[in-house]
């Protein structure tokens, strides 16, 4: 049975449009979907990251950002297996909010997060795209998430992380990162997350002290790019 038929009567055209959407129809153009525009940005850090994952095929790459078809397309196009886990969405979920130690305060259930998210065998991944997750994660989750990522990354595995500089300001909007090619990223604003902190270089070095090497790249628009090797 085929959903697409060229001899469909006119009266059935509207119904066919529905079926076409259901069975393999094309997507609406961006203007019709109301999605935010994408802003291109060259990235030296991502270029360097890509060089570390070119060979061999079949690597396992974990993307910690929101689901991006561009990223999946790029990674699988290299012959790799793409994993996706939106850590910020999970870490900011209301189900994780629990009462804090002080009256009326709240905190995040770290144990629950670690039991439900980032659940992979040790040394599973050849590389991790962390983007700027650390800047937007609730404070109690930052260190445990970095430790978990260290555990699930293979020795000599690469990780790319971005950090805002202080000049970015507390109102710096959250952007999704879409991979355009090995030199170019596209930034798309949203969903809304509040910038929780800005790290200085020594804080970044401290946070990732278990990693073997750390390399800083000065990015554009008050972003530092950091390439780490486990």
């Amino acid at each position, binding site marked *: *049975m085929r*959903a697409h038929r060229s001899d*469909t009567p006119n009266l*059935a055209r509207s*119904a*066919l449009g*529905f*079926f076409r959407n*259901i*069975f*393999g129809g*094309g*997507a*609406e*153009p*961006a*203007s019709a*979907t109301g*999605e935010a525009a994408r802003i291109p940005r060259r990235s030296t850090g991502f270029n360097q990251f*890509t060089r570390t994952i*070119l*060979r061999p*095929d079949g690597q*396992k790459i974990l993307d910690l950002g929101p*689901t991006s*078809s*561009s990223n*999946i*397309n*790029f990674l*699988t*196009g*290299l*012959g790799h*297996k*793409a*994993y*996706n*886990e*939106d850590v910020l*969405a999970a870490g900011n979920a209301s189900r994780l909010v629990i009462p804090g130690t002080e009256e009326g305060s709240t905190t995040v259930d770290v144990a629950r997060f670690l039991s439900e998210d980032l659940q992979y065998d040790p040394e599973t991944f050849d590389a991790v795209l962390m983007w700027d997750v650390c800047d937007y994660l609730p404070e109690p989750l930052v260190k445990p998430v970095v430790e978990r990522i260290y555990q699930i990354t293979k020795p000599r595995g690469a990780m790319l992380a971005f950090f805002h500089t202080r000049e970015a300001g507390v109102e710096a909007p959250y952007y999704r990162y879409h991979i355009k*090619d*090995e030199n170019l990223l596209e930034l798309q604003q949203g969903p809304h997350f509040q910038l929780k902190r800005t790290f200085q270089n020594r804080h970044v070095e401290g946070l990732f002290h278990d990693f073997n090497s750390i390399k800083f790249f000065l990015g554009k628009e008050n972003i530092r790019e950091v390439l780490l090797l486990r």
Partner: protein
Amino acid sequence: MDTYRADVAHIGKSVIIKGELSGSEDLFLDGEVEGNIDLHNHNLVIGPNGRVRANVHAKDVVVHGKVDGNITGVDKVELKKSAVLNGDINTQRIVIEDGAFFKGAIDIRKADAKAEPVRPAAQAAAATPVFSTPAASATVTTGIPEKK
């Protein structure tokens, strides 16, 4: 709509199925299924009300609803913008609309090694994806080209 229902098996949103669901015709599933779904060489659409807790195997799989389980699409898997998938995808081609939620792994399977042109990885990285839609589109498809 009547034409569609005549050609495609339809499971409505009030239907709940527990167990093995298999068939040899295209299926539109808008209800709940817990178990396994195997349509062999036929297409499956999980409608916006569809709630699936099962491993899914079909030719083309289109997801509008929620799936907890692994999806094998022999030809193609499509996640629409309302889709929520917790599980792995194994297919030749994949389409993910902006807004879809996906947590899991994607393994792009090659249909026939002989059909795929050999090219260096660096070149592959720089090249325009084979199935990319125009930049303005919300969807990008990946995978290897179909044999002509």
